[in-house]
């Protein structure tokens, strides 16, 4: 956090690295020339000194002019914004949908005058002082037919690696002179939420059938068992065969109930896909590893969800947690958003969350303890597929390298820095141990798979 804080405040230093390095390089060049040639034949140094003087003065004038225009542009915007009513528009990806990674973000700010030949840049400040990459606002926005622009905007790639919601708290604007020696900052408060979706993976074919009948829509191959009010009992009603009354229950509770026969319903409509974010092995709040594992798991869940969708059934994705509501998002269900916004939870075990009668497909991570899964599987009908994702290999080993990567570096992502520590992480060892147990359980059960997250 301290590092982030330093980074954040370093934004306001006005003087840029380019200025300091240029100054240093010029000083070095001058020192070298002075020490080497000032001792030589006077004629040489006399002319050289003359040339340096011309260059120095010309560069000084240019720099002065350059800084002046940046300052004027800053002052102008300052006065335009003195009432604080400048509204920044942000847009992410296409139609505000973007997958995690390098995300194109468009920033539009009205009432800005650029420094002459200089640039205006903007950076988003997310919660906890996380800074985005800077975006060059190099395009003009004009009303139709208007000559003067009403705003400037620009699109730049911003690293949004984590799948989920990003709270934008500020937009920092920088007025850069043409030589990029200084960047005068201006902060516009903002309150906007952006989100990124899990990443799309290569499509897969997964077969599953719905297990609930909300509408008699699809005829299914294996009729499903339909039960009564209390699982296999119901209250006695007129017309019921008294011979079916369960007297043991009557003796214990005083309720007269009858045993009902199981019926088989050949119709089903909705495919319930249960994806559990239960994680009992780690500390979900405070670990970079956990965040990255969650990212990978979300990608997998998304991939599975979309693969199941291809079976043509209506899908239901029950949630094991409350996800934040996003301002401006319609109530119309957006399952991908829910997957993106979910986080690891420790409160609702899979056997508590998954409704056995409805479930058509169950998935979870290998962070669910083996005994919890075992408990779930005891009651889960055999025909319902269960998939668990192996999280121990979600973060690649640093030794894993493709041949072409010997010659060309792959693009670095924030997860890369976790690769080496992950190999020694105790969490990884705990996960591996749990995965071995899961493997045994799944082997015994059948119709259950432990799948690598790195596949």
């Amino acid at each position: 956090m301290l590092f982030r804080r330093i980074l954040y405040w370093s934004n306001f230093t006005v003087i840029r690295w380019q200025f300091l390095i240029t100054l240093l390089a010029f000083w070095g060049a001058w020192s070298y020339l002075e020490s080497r040639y000032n001792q030589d034949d006077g004629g040489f140094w006399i002319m050289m000194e003359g040339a340096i003087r011309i260059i120095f003065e010309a560069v000084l004038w240019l720099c002065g002019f350059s800084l002046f225009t940046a300052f004027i542009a800053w002052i102008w915007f300052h006065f335009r914004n003195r009432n604080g009513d400048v509204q920044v528009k942000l847009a992410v990806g296409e139609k505000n949908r973007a997958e995690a990674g390098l995300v194109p973000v468009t920033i539009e700010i009205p009432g800005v005058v650029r420094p002459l030949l200089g640039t205006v840049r903007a950076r988003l400040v997310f919660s906890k002082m996380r800074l985005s990459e800077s975006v060059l606002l190099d395009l003009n926005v004009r009303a139709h037919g208007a000559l003067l622009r009403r705003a400037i905007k620009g699109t730049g790639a911003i690293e949004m690696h984590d799948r989920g919601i990003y709270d934008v708290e500020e937009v920092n604007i920088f007025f850069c002179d043409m030589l990029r020696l200084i960047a005068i900052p201006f902060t516009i408060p903002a309150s906007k939420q952006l989100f990124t979706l899990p990443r799309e993976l290569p499509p897969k074919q997964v077969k599953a059938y719905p297990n609930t009948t909300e509408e008699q829509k699809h005829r299914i191959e294996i009729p499903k068992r339909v039960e009564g009010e209390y699982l296999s009992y119901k209250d006695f009603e007129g017309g019921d065969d008294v011979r079916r009354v369960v007297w043991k229950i009557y003796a214990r509770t005083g309720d007269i109930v009858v045993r009902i026969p199981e019926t088989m319903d050949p119709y089903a409509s909705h495919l319930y896909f249960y994806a559990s974010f239960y994680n009992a092995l780690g500390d979900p709040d405070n670990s970079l590893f956990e965040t990255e594992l969650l990212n990978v798991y979300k990608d997998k869940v998304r991939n599975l969800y979309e693969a199941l969708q291809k079976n043509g059934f209506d899908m239901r994705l029950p949630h094991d947690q409350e996800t934040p509501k996003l301002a401006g998002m319609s109530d119309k269900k957006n399952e991908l958003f829910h997957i993106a916004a979910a986080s690891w939870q420790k409160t609702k075990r899979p056997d508590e969350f998954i409704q056995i009668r409805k479930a058509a497909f169950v998935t979870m991570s290998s962070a669910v303890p083996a005994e919890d899964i075992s408990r779930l599987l005891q009651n889960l009908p055999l025909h319902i597929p269960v998939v668990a994702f192996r999280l121990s290999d979600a973060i690649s080993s640093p030794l894993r390298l493709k041949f072409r990567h010997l010659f060309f570096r792959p693009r670095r992502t924030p997860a890369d820095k976790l690769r080496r520590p992950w190999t020694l992480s105790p969490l990884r060892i705990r996960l591996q141990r749990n995965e071995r147990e899961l493997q045994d359980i799944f082997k015994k059960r059948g119709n259950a798979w432990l799948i690598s997250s790195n596949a």
Partner: protein
Amino acid sequence: MSIAPNTSRNVFQLMIRLLFEVLPTALVIFLTLRFVNVSFSGFDTGYEKQALYFNLGMAIAYSLYFFRARFIITFGLLLLTYWIIAFIIGKLPGEFDVFRAMISFRLYATLFIGGWIAGFLLARIRFAYIIISVFLAVVTLIHISGADKIEAGTADGLKAYFLLNALPVVAYILYMLFLAPVLANLVVMDAKRAGKLFFRIILFLAVVLLVFIWQTGKHKKDLQARWEKTQQETPPGDKGQQQPYDEKHGLLERGRRDQPGQKPPEGAQGEDDGEGGYRLKDSMSMSDRMSQADYIMFCSKLKNYFPDGSPKPLYFVYHYLTKYDPARETFTRDTAMPFNDELHVDPASLPMYRMRSDSTVIKNSLATKSRKVIEAEVYMSSNTWKHALLGPGGTFSCQSIPVDSSFGKIFRSAYKIKSYASDLNNAYFVYNPSANPMIEAYQHQRFEELREVENYADADSTLMAYYTQMPTGRLYDSIHALAARITKDAETPVDKVIAVRDFFLQTDKEGNRIFRYTLTTGPPGDPNIPNASMLWNFLFRTHRGYCTYYAGASIFLLRAAGIPCRFTTGFATIDRSDKNKGWYWFYASQAHAWTQVYFPEYGWLDFDMTIGNEDQREAPQPDGTPPLPPPEPWIVIQGKAATEATPAKSLDVTFGKIIFFNEDYQLRKITTLEINASVCRVLYGKKDTTLSAIQPGDSIFVVSYHDAAKQIPIPRPGVDIDRQVGDFPKPLVADEIHIKPKDELKPEEEEKRKKKEKPEDALTWQQILLRTGIAMGSLLLLILLIPSFIFLWLLMRTGVAGTIKKKADRAYRFALFHFHMAGDERGNETPLQYAENKIDPTYNAGFTDFMRRYLRLKYSSPELRQGDAEAIKAFSSNVRPAVRRKRGFFNVISAYFNLARAYRYMHRRPGETDKPAETELFDGLDTKPE
């Protein structure tokens, strides 16, 4: 949607960056290499080709590293490839060919690798462009600053010179500063953005150009003054001693300050620009007469002898004139001649004892047989242009040496040269015919050896094409026919050369020579001959001419016979002295032109076809006493005196450069050494002085001679030079100390200059820094005063408000700002809460009462009530005293320099407006009539 790798888009990004970033860099590299080539003849292999290799390496590397190639692996592969190719070349047959091929390969491969590294830095290392561009600027600056390279001495000429030479690289630095952030990695360029960027670049460069034109114009007089100063530092030639000499019709002309290898400007012939001294012309034509003079030009100790110890003189070459203008019958220099084997060094610009060598001269001599390295010392008289480099053909090294003071009146400078000379070359061919049996035998031996060259089948085609080219026309057809007739019986190239010589030596029936030497050939003038020309006249009619005729005619005859040859200018060497063997004296009348013929493996050999001139064989005056050769120095220190000389005659010298056994070294760190000056000679310029003349900070040269009595450390190969310097004897015994003369102008000249120069043209560095400091300080002060200006503005507006309502409004704004700047900042409170809770308890300024009146007037009842006007006026005048009472005068003043606080006032978050909130409005309403 996230940004996924996309090959076509990435290629477009690369193309944009190649266009905007790599191409301008390549252009500047090209210009820089051009400067470097002009200054260092060692590089002279064609800067276009060098730039091509460098830029190719840069473009390939940039493209690879743009696509994230790994540097270690790719660079390792590159070095491996380099090593394999070098290994293969090393194994090829042919010793000299391999040497040549290896030299070429190493040069181009080094350039390619240099380009590769530059490409890597540009593509990968942030801010590397700053280092690259400043480095290029430094290199350019070094190569354009030499006064000898600046031809124009006028203010406008100097302005143009600097604009043309310095502007590109400085514009490049600024351009890269401008461009690089725009092309930062994550900025995705499309066609529209690229178009806009191009337009912006044009605009930017226009601004840079304008500023530079303005600045150069402003400083042009300063530049001119500096240039003139450099000219005054050069002692003019001894003009008083010059004899009348008709330059128009002579082989010599006054020297000018042109660049080595550059053609003199048109119409400049004969101009005396104050350089003094004569040099051979860079273009020679066949004229109707030739003028000669008898003053001494230079003398030389040539260490070239026959096996029996007798001197073996060599012609001293000045230039090769390889281009021919048939219309003017003039031979001129061509710096683009293939296999250029001239050494481009200006001896006058070499610091004392400094050596410049160029191995490409050896390579381009194309000679492997009968060659050896010979040395010569050349002492230039003040009659000779001091920038001229004269030496036997194949001179590849030049070192400046001092002239003994007792000969200072005759010789003003001297240098030592090394030549890769042919054993088959000497001055005895036609000019000094036979009479000496040893020389005759030598000549026959020479011819016999050259007969081994049967033809030019294996000669380089470029060389053959260039050195056998002839103009077309009837004259040259006649020469072809003549050459065919002369050489019809000659089989080998040397026999053809001898046949041409014999053609000039032929006699008539009476035994008289047909071709005669004369300095007055007379005009061609036969009106009956339509193609009458000097050359035609000489070959076919008068047969009378001087060296230019013989050299020119023999060149065309030889070329017509398919023999590559070239026109050479220099000085004929005449051995007149028995007393001082190996010493030769050269007079202006020995200025000469002759022919050099190329023989494969033997290289270029002198053949002088000129018929002997009896008048010229005798020296115009007897040879003088040769100057004393300077002692051999083992070390020359270039540095600054760190202390004054002590009574014990020792002083400390601080230095970073030395010449150690004739090799230049740049030390990594500045070193201080104690010098024992008890036995040394001290010179100020060329005048002797005493040790006490040395003041701390003076630039001095310390020379220590090679002396058996001294314990001299010998250079140790592979040992760091700084370490070797550390092992030098302490104190170091000096033999000579040269104090660099300070720039001193005569009082009347200084007066003149003061009148001439405008005050602004004479800015010193201190003044520039002072002015810059003042400008920056003013800017800073201006920024610091912004809150005060706002205060004054608000105060003034309050004071001049016309109506009470306006006054209330303005007083309200003024009070908010003033209280804020005094340190009581308003948080999220409403103005009324602010007044009630914060201001009045602190200042007791009546702000709450004022606010209630103000809010009522503004939002409820616009009519003034009794007491409103007085209360508002009282409040507006009470704000400042109230704050001053509480905070103190100086605290209030200093608070107005708090920019951050002022910024916070201006920078309100949404909702933090100066307008009262709705709820406050009602709180502030006072509905009760007073």
